[in-house]
């Protein structure tokens, strides 16, 4: 609670003194999990939850603007209804660089806790409720502490980012290894509605609690996005390497806007965390319907099925209904 108040006061101070705008979201969800075995039935198989809330602020100061996000989420597995995680998700200064910013538009040095530009992650605005492939498989973090150089390619042909991070994500802000992670990202839009993107992440992570033994951690992603009228298609390939273990996966996403308010969505993921082990992969199939009640309220209904190549594991499915409020 103290941490929440401190972060809220910090946000309010920035809002008052730096002429900032304040905005955010919160998500209210109902989840029904279909037990695969009778003994799996528990009282928690269906529940309402406020999964997450964001309180955001942003200044328009030049040449340095400030952004912050307080991330409030329920602690998973907690038996205390009032048990919440309160963290800073973003806390960054965006310094528009002189001269370079004139030649290459919007080139800025990003300092602090910031978005990781990698694969689908920085593009994913949760059209379906599930996280994007790399986050769902816990192979990347959506935010991290460090320095970034971000800019746009002239005439709207895309964007690039080069970032150096601690490599441990925003939930572990203390340095967990002796080497920094490096992330490079290039997104090209050669034709309106066509995006080609490549991202690479290179880090070393400690084994266990010691930093003496560290192993390579590589991630790479290739993405193709198409948008034509009411149809949006995205496909991503994800490669991972942790020491000698190689993993791979892919994700395909489609959305058809039936009206301005109503859209039909589908996603298919496959991921194999160790390609040297047979029958190790799993599939995630999602079908969904989004209805925009107003500019501030989005209703989402998703059906999600997980199946496994390993015959000994049962498939599982769940239905989620979510209301996303923005203010």
């Amino acid at each position: 609670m103290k941490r929440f108040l401190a972060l809220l006061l910090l946000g309010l101070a920035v809002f008052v003194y730096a002429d900032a705008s304040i905005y955010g979201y919160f998500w209210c969800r109902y989840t029904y999990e279909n037990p695969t075995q009778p003994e799996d039935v528990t009282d928690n198989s269906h529940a309402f939850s406020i999964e997450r809330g964001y309180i955001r602020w942003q200044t328009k100061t030049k040449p340095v603007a400030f952004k912050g996000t307080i991330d409030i989420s329920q602690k998973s597995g907690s038996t205390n209804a009032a048990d919440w995680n309160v963290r800073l998700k973003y806390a960054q200064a965006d310094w528009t660089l002189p001269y370079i910013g004139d030649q290459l538009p919007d080139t800025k040095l990003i300092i602090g806790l910031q978005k990781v530009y990698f694969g689908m992650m920085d593009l994913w605005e949760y059209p379906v409720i599930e996280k994007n492939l790399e986050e769902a498989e816990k192979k990347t973090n959506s935010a991290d502490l460090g320095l970034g150089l971000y800019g746009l390619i002239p005439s709207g042909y895309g964007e690039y980012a080069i970032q150096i991070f601690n490599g441990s994500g925003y939930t572990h802000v203390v340095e967990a290894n002796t080497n920094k992670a490096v992330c490079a990202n290039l997104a090209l839009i050669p034709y309106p509605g066509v995006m080609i993107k490549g991202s690479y992440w290179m880090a070393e992570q400690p084994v266990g609690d010691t930093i003496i033994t560290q192993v390579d951690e590589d991630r790479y992603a290739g993405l193709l996005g198409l948008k034509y009228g009411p149809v949006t298609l995205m496909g991503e390939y994800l490669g991972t390497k942790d020491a000698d273990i190689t993993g791979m996966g892919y994700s395909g996403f489609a959305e058809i806007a039936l009206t301005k308010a109503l859209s039909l969505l589908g996603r298919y993921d496959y991921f194999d965390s160790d390609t040297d082990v047979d029958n190790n992969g799993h599939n995630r199939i999602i079908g969904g319907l989004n209805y925009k009640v107003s500019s501030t309220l989005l209703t989402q209904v998703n059906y999600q099925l997980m199946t496994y190549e390993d015959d000994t594991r049962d498939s599982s499915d769940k239905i989620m209904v979510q209301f996303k409020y923005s203010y």
Partner: protein
Amino acid sequence: MKKFLILGMVVFSGLFAQKLTLQGSTTVLPIAQAGAEAYMDNNPNADITVRGGGSGTGIAALIDGATDIADASRAMKTKEIKQARENGINPVEHIIARDGIAVIVHPDNPLANISIEDIKKIYTSEISRWDKVSTGSGPIVVISRDAASGTFETFNHLALNNAKLTDAALMLASNLEVARTVAQTPGAIGYIGLGYLTDNVKALKVDGVVCTEETVRDETYPLGRPLFMYTNGAPKGLTKDFLDFLMSSEGQDIVRDAGFVPVETVE
């Protein structure tokens, strides 16, 4: 039966009415409105809707596919072009008129000319009294357009070199409000589009150049700017017809009548 037939014809013609939507800059709004009315007078089948909201709002609507034409008093930013291209929209720029941003004071103010440098000092609170820039006296009341307007962005870029505006500035939502407030406030300074100049306010020369149609067109006036309409791709159908009409001598007469500078001289 006759009534039924007439009703049927009305419904039938409504079904086949060609629709066009314009949204965006409040500066461009008078041109868009007058142009739409004149076009619909000549083309009764056309149904043109014109909305304001500011340049940013119009551009956002174009990016979302919610408008056919975005009216803007500033060029689209690279970030906006990228967002549009991501969304399958190919923004194409059309300069339909030119505008000068006139720096105005109360008619009793003795000042006649002001430098860009002094404008910047006034709007960033480095100068706060009239005796620093003229024979006048008293505090300067700084009046600005709100930050969402294209006029603000252009003025901020051309006159202030993107410096932070003083917190003391009174931010108003339209050119008309700025003109009215300056006319009623002896110590005020403000800025408005050339089309909104009236005898109730005094337009200052900027760096020795008076804000007129000629100086804006020949680009000698330092606070001049083009006015834009953006379409998704090369215009077609009604969108093309309407833009062709605006660029015709009749359309450019409308531009001049609205107080702006035609792109080409209309004899």
